Every structure is written in structure tokens, then in C-alpha cells.
């Protein structure tokens, strides 16, 4: 799968990046391509480009707070999950998404 996503946590200094790391690691191990944008207190980093969004099969939004720029994902398959889930069980989450996408 071609996975893109956004992470954002309350303080915007730690979990945002932990969640990104977990998602990227799990996705790569499972053989997916992945790009995650972080919306931390420092600002948006690794911003998703229009090409990224176009190529994506699934958009994962892992956030405890309001995420900016959701309108970019109009028409895409979007899944919103709490940060906790991405940090605790990234692989199970990806597996589940894969199952759901296959129908």
C-alpha cells in the first residue's frame, strides 16, 4: 500500500514524532511505502505534497487535536485514529486497514 498520514499530539513535542516513527517503522517492515507529516508545536514538517496525496491508497490521521489541512484529502480513503493506537499497535492497525481495504 501507499500510505500517507498526519500525526499531531497535545503538547506537539514528543508523541507526534514517536507516532510517526512507529507508523513508518511498521509500514516499512510490512513492505508498504509511507510518508507521514508531523504537525507539532514547531510547525508542520514533511508536508504532504499534492503528488503524495494523489498517489496514496490510504490516509491515516493519528491525532489527539484538530489537524490542519484536512481538505487536501477530499475524495481519499481517510481513517482517523487516536495517537494511542498508533503508538501501541501500529502493525495491528495496518493489518486491519489492509483487510478492510480488500473488503
Amino acid at each position, binding site marked *: 500500500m501507499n500510505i500517507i498520514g498526519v500525526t499531531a499530539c497535545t*503538547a506537539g513535542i514528543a508523541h507526534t514524532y514517536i507516532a510517526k516513527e512507529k507508523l513508518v517503522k511498521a509500514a516499512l517492515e510490512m513492505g508498504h511505502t509511507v510518508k507521514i507529516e508531523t504537525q507539532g508545536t514547531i510547525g508542520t514538517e514533511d508536508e504532504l505534497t499534492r503528488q503524495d496525496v494523489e498517489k496514496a491508497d490510504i490516509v491515516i490521521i493519528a491525532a489527539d487535536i484538530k489537524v490542519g489541512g484536512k481538505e487536501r484529502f477530499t475524495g481519499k480513503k481517510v481513517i482517523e485514529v487516536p495517537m494511542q493506537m498508533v503508538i501501541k499497535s501500529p502493525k495491528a492497525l495496518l493489518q486491519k486497514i489492509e483487510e478492510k481495504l480488500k473488503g
Partner: protein
Amino acid sequence: MKFKWSVIKQHLMTGISYMIPVVVVGGLCMALAKIFGGPMVGDQVNTIPWMINEIGKAAMMFVVPVLAAGIAYSVADRPGIAPGLVMGFIATNIKAGFIGGLVGALLVGYLIVFLRTRLKVPNSFRGLMPIMVLPLLSSFIVGLMMIGFLGEPIAYLQQGILEWMKSMQGGSKFILGAIIGAMMGFDMGGPVNKTAGLFAKGLMADKIFGPASAMIIGGMVPALGVALSVFVAKKKYTRAENEAAKAALPLGLCYITEGVLPFAASDPFRVIPACSIGAGVAGGLTLMWGTASQVPHGGIFVVPLMDHPLMFLLALLIGTIVTATILTLIKPNLKGEEEAEAEAEIGLNDLDIKIG
């Protein structure tokens, strides 16, 4: 419109996330001013510490307005920002504080959402909606409500809570601190932890800084305690866990509870109680001993800026030892090489993929 608690909590969290840097600036400036200028820094007009104190005070004025603006923005997007700021300032003015700002912001936000969907305007007026009609109408209505009749009972409630917190002595302070600490240690960044954090950070907006130190200590003890347990009883842990402990130590010192996650995920029924009890003891002691933190983040780095930093360190040490002792005692010896990295299956069944 949805009124689910999880949605409302997300709005509150967004507000808090915008509020934190304001508290940090205000809290750090005031703490620094006190270090250089002494407790009476407010009277030493035109000295540098006094100026720093003034900067801190200025930032503190904006804590509730920024919180409210963030909440209203989360509910209603950009049209929510201005009315949110106004409601937050009104709440500060009428002494309805944190709770007042929160109520005002949610009301104004949802009112904007309501107006936006219900109010039908001719096309030529559409441009006026976000910059004039929505902010003005919502500020007008909720502002009148806040000043007219909502503010007073909230201010009353708020004052009551503050008085109660201030009047607490010894034992009851220990209990409050213990509850905050134990909640912080319970689920490492999960909902229980967030609720305790919301409470402690909210009180900071009203210049009650004690619970914040219980919150910080509760977030630090679990990772430190688990790391200590691994260092004294290496053989009870897998190789992966021994590695994870080396990461948990700095994470704990930096007030990032997630260092415990690898341990909690593979053995929740031993690790979570041990963390909660240690964090609870530390939280109770730190509040009872009168430590207070004007800064909501930073772990070990903000300890020098706290009131009674040595007491904080002592409570931290005791809590860490309690967690480590409990965990080491109840942890069984390893049976063979268990290297499986367990992943918790949490709520994966109600995943909801939306197209749109």
C-alpha cells in the same frame, strides 16, 4: 453536529495545545524573575527582574483567552478564533477563569457551527459571513450570556475550587497529589493520563501550580522506576527489555512516560499497578511537601525553577524506588527466551474508514 465526549475532548486538547507555550513563557519568566529578584520582585519597579516578571504577567493574562480561542477554533475553524479570544478574556475579567473560558469557548464554537449551517444568506453576503456575521453574532450572544448570568455561578464554582485547593492541608493534599500521580502513571499518555493532565494544566491557568508538579512527577516516575527495576534485576527481563530500559531512563527524566510502553504492552498487569502506585506515592508526597511548578513541561530541566526543588527530587526518588521495588518483586523469572514483541489490540474493531 456531534456531541460525543471524545469529540469535545479533542477540542479541549486542541485548546490546551495552543495554551501550553503561553503558560511556558509566563511561568518561566515569573519563575526566573523570582530567582533573580526574590519573592517581592513585584515591588522592585524598573529593575531587570521586575521587567521579566512583567513579561510573565503579560503572558499569563493570555492563558485563558488563548485556550478559549484554540477550543473555539477547533470547533468552528477560523471564524471561532476571534470570538474565542473575547470569551476567554471575559472569563478572565469576571474571574470565571479556566472553566469559564472553556464553557464560553465551547458555546461560541458550537453556536458558530449552528449559525453557519442554519443561516441562509444571499450570495452577495456570503463573504460577510466569516468575517462579520458569525464572529459578531456569536460573540454578542454568548458574551451576553457569560456576563449576564453564566459567569457568576461559574466564577463562584471556580473560586470554590481554588479556595478548596488552597485550604487543603497535609493528608488531603497527599490524597489529591496521589490521585493525580496515579492517574498519570496509569496509562502512559492515554485517556486517564490526559484527564489528569487537563485538570492540572487547567488549574495553572488560575495560578494554582501545585498539581502541575504532581502531574510532572507522575509522568516521570513510571519510566524511571521501570528502568531502575531492569538495572537491579537484569535477569528478569529479556534482551529487548534491557535495551528498552536504556531508552526509558532519559525519556523518564524528560517527562515522556512513553518509555514504559514496551514494558506495559508485554506485561500490563504487573507494570501498570507498579507504575501507578509509585507515581501516586510521588505525586502525594510532592504536593504535601508544597512543591509547585509554574512550567507544565520539561521534566528534570524545570526542577530548578520549581518551588522546593529538593523536595521534588526526594519525592521523585521515593516514587521511583517504590515502582522499582514492587515491579522487581512481582516480576517472575524469565522462562526461556521470550522475545516476542507484544502489541496490544486496543479498540481495533471499531475502525472506521471514511471516503471523503
